[in-house]
C-alpha cells in the first residue's frame, strides 16, 4: 500500500474491527483519536476497516462519527476480512514506527489476536 502524500505523512493508524457493533467501535475509536491528538498533536488518522460488511456499506456504522468530525484529517481504507492483507498492513505500519492502535469488537478475536501478537494495543468494545 502506498501512502497518500501529506494526508498520510506524520499520521497515526487505527485498525477498526467490527461486524455487528460498528457504531460503538467507531465512537470509541473517535474518543481515542481525540485523546491521542491531545497527547501527540497528531491531526491525521488513517482508519483501516476490518469488517464483514462490503464496501462502502460499512460507512453506515461510521456515519455519525464522520459527519461530526470537523477537526481531524481522516482517511478510510477498506480491508474487509482479508486477514493476510491485515497482517501485511500491521507489519508495514510497525516497520514505519508510526503509532498504531486497534479498536475491535470483542467478538472479533482473530483480529485482536493478530494485533496483540505484534504488540499493538487493542481496545475491545
Amino acid at each position, binding site marked *: *500500500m*502506498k501512502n*497518500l*502524500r*501529506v*494526508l498520510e505523512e506524520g499520521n497515526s493508524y487505527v485498525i477498526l474491527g467490527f461486524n455487528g457493533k460498528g457504531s460503538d467501535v467507531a465512537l470509541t475509536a473517535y474518543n481515542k483519536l481525540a485523546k491521542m491528538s491531545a497527547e501527540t498533536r497528531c*491531526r*491525521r488518522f*488513517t482508519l483501516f*476497516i476490518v469488517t464483514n460488511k*462490503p*464496501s*462502502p*456499506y460499512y*460507512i*453506515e456504522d461510521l*456515519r455519525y462519527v*464522520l*459527519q461530526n*468530525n*470537523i*477537526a*481531524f*484529517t*481522516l*482517511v*478510510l*481504507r*477498506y480491508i474487509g476480512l482479508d486477514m493476510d492483507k491485515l497482517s501485511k498492513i500491521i507489519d508495514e505500519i510497525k516497520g514505519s514506527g508510526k503509532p498504531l492502535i486497534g479498536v475491535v469488537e470483542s467478538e472479533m478475536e482473530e483480529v485482536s489476536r493478530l494485533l496483540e501478537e505484534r504488540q499493538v494495543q487493542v481496545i475491545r468494545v
Partner: protein
Amino acid sequence: MGKYEVVLTVDRSMMSNHHGKEFLGFMATGPAMGIPEKLWQWLAAPKIKVDSEGRPVQAPYGMRKVEAVLIDAGFKAAIIDPDHLHKHLDTMKVMMVGHHDYFAYGPPSSEFWSMTGKEPLNRKLFIKFMNSPVVRKAKEKGVKFIMGGPAAWQWLWELELWRKWGVDTVIEGEVERVIVDLVQKALDGEELPDYVYVGPGDSPSIEEIPVIKGASVNGLVEIMRGCPRGCKFCSVTLRPLRFIPLEKIREEIRVNKKAGINGVILHSEDVLLYGADGIRPRPEPLLKLHKMVAEEVGPKGDIAWAHASLAAIRYAEERYGLVSKLMQEHILNEHRNLLGLEVGIETGSPRLAKIIMPAKSLPYKPEEWPDVVEDAFRIMHENHMIPAATLILGLPEEEPEDVVKTVELLDRLKPYRSVIVPMFFVPMGALKKNTWFMREHLKPEHIDVLVKCLDHSIYWAEDIINRFYLKEPYLAPVRIGIKLFLRFAKRGLKTLKPTLEAMIKK
C-alpha cells in the same frame, strides 16, 4: 479523439451560467412548479457554450481550482461539459465530479423537496447523469471516479448508489494540497481510500491556492477563505482565515474577462469581513477591493456579493458609513442599479439565536438580533442591495414563542426589498425515506411564517423584475417564464393557508 486523462465534470444543474443570473440557478434546487419541467430546467440551467473539445466557457469555480492545481502539476486535465464526455472516453482514466448538492440534501433543495414531496431538479439531473450510457461506459472501461465538492458528505447517505455507480473515492474539504497525489495514485492504479476528509490543519496556504485557468460561472471570484466568527458547530471557522491578495483577485477577474464575462461575484462567507479586524469590518481593505473590482469590470460590468452577514452590514454602516460609501463610490451607476447578495436571518427569536448561533450577531448581543436584522435590511434597501435571505424553521430546540417572534420580525421587514426563503430543519432520515416531511412536522405556528414569506417574496420579486432584473432584451423569454411562475405562486398563495391548515388537521 480526446486528449485528457483526467476529466472534471458534473451534471447540467451545475454546468450552466443560469442565463448569467446567479439567482436563477436556485430554481435548479426545486422541482418544476406551475410550468413544465423542461421549461423549468431551461430557466434554471440552460446549456453552456463549449469549444470543440467540449470544454465549457464557464464552469463552477471549485472545479476550476482543482483543474488549475492538476494542470500546474502537469496532468492532462480539463473540465468537460457532460454532453461532451463521449469525446474523451478513449483517453479518460479518472473522472472527477464536484457538486454543491448531489442528492438535494442541502438547503434549499431539501426544503423544496419536503414541502412539495417531489424530487428537486438537481437530484434528478445528477442521477440521470450518473446513469447515462457514457458514464456507465467509462466505469466499464475502468475509469476511476472521485467525488468531491461541498456536498461530498451527501455520499455518506447514499451508499447504495455509491456502490452501484462504482465510486472509488469521496473526498471532502479543501483539496488543493492533496488532490495531485490522489489523482496520481488513481492514474497509477494504486489502491485508493474509500473516503478522505481533509481536516483544517491540511488546508492550503494562500500560496498553494492557484489562480483559475478558465472562466468561472458568472465571474465568481473568491476573496477569502475561513470565517472568524468561531461558531462551535462549524468547520469553516476551524480553518485558517485567509484573505486572497488583491493581485490574485485581479488576475482571476482578468481570466474571466478574457472569456467574455464582464462581471464579478465576490465570494466569501462574509464579504464585509475581507481584511477585517476579527468580526469588525475595516474600511481600507474593502474600499481598495471594490475600487480595484470596479476598475477591472468598468462601468458596465456587474458586481455582486455571494454572502454577507447582517451584523457586519449594520456595524460597517453605523461605524463608518461604509456600506453607503462602497455602493455610492464603487458599485452603483447608471448601468449597475442593484447589488445582489445572500444573507441569513435564520430566526427572529433572540432566545433561539443565543442557542443556535451565538456568534452570528457579533459585535452585537444576541438579544439585539431582531434589531440587527431590521437595521441591516433598512441599510440594504436604502442602498439598492437586494438580499435573498434565509430563515430556519423546525430546529430541535424551537418553541412556538420563537416562531411568533419570527412572524413579528417578518412584519418589521415588510417595507424592505428582499426575497425571504423559509427553510425547514429536515432530519436526513426523512428525506432518505422520500416522505413528505412537512405533512408530519408542520406546526400551526409555522404556517404564518410560510404564508408571510411567500407573500413578501412574491411582492418584492415582482418589484425587482419590474424595476431591476432581467432587463436585457435577450432575456425576454426568461422574463416571461419567471413571470409565469410568479403568477402560479400568486394563485397558490391564496389557497396556501387553508391547504396547510387542512393538512395538519388530518
